[in-house]
């Protein structure tokens, strides 16, 4: 079971590196999902080692929050694509109009 | 250890063989049923009553040339039909064909994957059903396929909502997630003749679920994903021979799995059909056989219902479909859910 601790750390770090390196918004969102997956795994492992069921509930809350995040993020991307015809972060220079 | 491995292997074989073996028969019923509805004869040349026609079709599919278009995305193009078939088979794993019984001193649960939240598992894996279609549409690299896939996907995601409201209402009502306990709550009779099926307590939820499974399995009147008159054949436009047949099989198996879930929730699952109970008292093995027979009969009637609806109702328009899903069925489902919760709260 101990290998899963390293796995969750690895997933979090990989998501982080992806979020930093990627230029397009969709890939960044994908990498954030990866980070969330790593943290959720860690919560479940804690629930196994401490015996508290609370950390499993945290995973449920995390799923709710990640669903909201993805839905709003993707709709923002679509709105951005409609207005600017781009999804690259470095091409979006002005914030209004 | 070895014994349980053998048990699981046998159960897997049975669960896989039943629907796959029934497929040719279902296709035959579908074609003959279509002919019956339209006052035609249908395929009746090959074998008695044309019963061997599906086998001839299979042979034709096997020996047809595999056309592999050059403009497709090769890996995903091949993977899509397999994904569709595998995902369609997965929900069958938790569907019991009889009550738990004793054999050679072991208690045998007649489902492959025994869990106390079977209904939840079935819906979780059938939520993956749109991936095969989405992959096919994207990998085909073709506007019609893409449109078909997007339509199918949007339709499945939308109707999953009203479907799940009806399932949650039934879970509240039975107070359990376990399929065996759900069916246990539905055995017996009211007033001596009316079976205790869920459909008589929750007709609204049953209706929602019924509409939902038509949309989920992309059958007429909701087969907008294929819609020959608008987008040629939708997501399987670029597929030929055996790959096309795999999509076809996936659709029928998805239909069987969803019908089985519908029957478990609303028509008593493997609970004996009225009039069978006096036979079942003879021996426990006979009881198991009769329960399996009841389930299979109910599923067969359900499949006939699919055929019946297919040749009765015309196809919906896309905006009509979305309006029905979001503005009619979803509020209805939520209202039904609230009423059910209040009922359960005041009953206890």
């Amino acid at each position, binding site marked *: *079971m*101990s290998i899963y*601790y390293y*796995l969750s*750390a690895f*997933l979090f770090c*990989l998501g*982080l590196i992806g979020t930093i390196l*990627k230029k*397009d918004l*969709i*890939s960044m*969102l994908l*990498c954030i*999902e*990866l980070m969330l*997956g790593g943290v959720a*795994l860690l919560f*479940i*492992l804690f629930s*196994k*080692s401490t*015996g508290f*069921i*609370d950390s*499993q*509930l945290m995973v*449920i*809350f995390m*799923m709710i929050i*990640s*669903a*909201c995040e993805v*839905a*709003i993020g*993707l*709709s923002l*991307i*679509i*709105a951005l*694509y*409609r207005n600017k015809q781009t*999804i*690259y972060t470095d091409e979006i220079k002005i914030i209004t109009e | 250890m070895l014994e349980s491995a053998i048990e699981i292997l046998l159960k897997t074989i049975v669960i896989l063989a039943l629907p796959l073996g029934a497929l040719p028969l279902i296709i035959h019923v579908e074609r003959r049923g279509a002919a019956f509805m339209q006052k035609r004869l249908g395929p009746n040349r090959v074998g008695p009553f044309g019963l061997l026609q599906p086998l001839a079709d299979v042979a034709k599919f096997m020996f047809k040339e595999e056309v592999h278009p050059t403009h497709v995305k090769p890996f995903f193009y091949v993977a899509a039909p397999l994904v569709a078939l595998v995902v369609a088979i997965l929900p069958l794993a938790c569907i019991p064909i009889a009550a738990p019984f004793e054999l050679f001193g072991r208690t045998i649960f007649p489902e492959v994957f025994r869990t106390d*939240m079977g209904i939840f*598992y079935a819906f*979780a894996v059938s*939520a*993956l059903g749109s*991936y095969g279609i*989405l992959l096919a*549409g*994207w990998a085909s690299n073709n506007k019609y396929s893409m449109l078909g896939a*997007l339509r199918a*996907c949007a339709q499945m*995601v939308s109707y999953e909502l009203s479907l799940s409201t009806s399932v949650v209402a039934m879970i509240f009502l039975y107070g359990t*997630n376990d399929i065996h306990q759900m069916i246990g709550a539905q055995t017996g009779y009211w007033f001596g003749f009316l079976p205790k099926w869920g459909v008589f307590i929750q007709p609204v939820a049953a209706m929602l679920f019924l509409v939902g499974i038509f949309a989920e399995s992309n059958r007429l009147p909701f087969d907008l994903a294929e819609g020959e008159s608008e987008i040629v054949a939708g997501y399987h436009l670029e597929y030929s021979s055996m790959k096309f047949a795999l999509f076809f099989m996936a659709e029928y198996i998805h239909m069987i799995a969803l019908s089985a879930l519908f029957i478990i929730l609303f028509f008593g699952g493997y609970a004996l059909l009225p009039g069978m109970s006096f036979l079942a008292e003879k021996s426990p093995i006979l009881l198991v056989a009769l329960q399996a027979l009841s389930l299979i009969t109910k599923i067969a009637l359900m499949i006939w219902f699919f055929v019946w609806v297919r040749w009765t109702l015309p196809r919906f328009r896309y*905006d009509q479909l979305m*309006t029905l899903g*979001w503005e009619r069925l979803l509020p209805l489902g939520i209202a039904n859910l609230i009423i059910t919760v209040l009922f359960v709260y005041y009953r206890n």
Partner: protein
Amino acid sequence: MGVDILLTILTVVFALMVVFSKKTVVSAFALLMTLLCLAMIYFQLGTVFLSAVQVLVNAGAIAILFVFVMMLIDLEQFPNNRERNKIKLVISIFTILIIMGVLALIINNNIDTLTVINLSDNSMKALFEKLYNTYYLPFEMATVLLLAAIVACVVITNHRKDDDSDNEGADKGVHP
């Protein structure tokens, strides 16, 4: 033990594909596979309910949303490895290695307390008793958050510039 390692290797491979694949659609499907592998890990750890929810919500809804949006946007014109900055890559990899090292130290020092398995009641009943008794306020807030997200999505995607004739009617047939 073997299952642990197999699942870990699978997850790592798919996670690497998410970050380093050249096509965004491939990354999305790799993310789907990662989430399914995580669901299998949850199942192996004995939290069956969470594994089912993971498949239902994360794999069944969130990953579908990703693929759906990717198909609405023409991704051919947006390759996802454009002008990859070498210095940035090296620096981030070093940072990640340092973070991993620190985490590994922490994990290694506490491995005895972390890998003790305390048996807890994993049933749905225990989970939801806790949810509706101790955590009812966060739960209500989460539902409000979901509602806000729904409204936000509808508002954001329905907004149209009046002078933009290219997109006229582009979302007319699309239902919120």
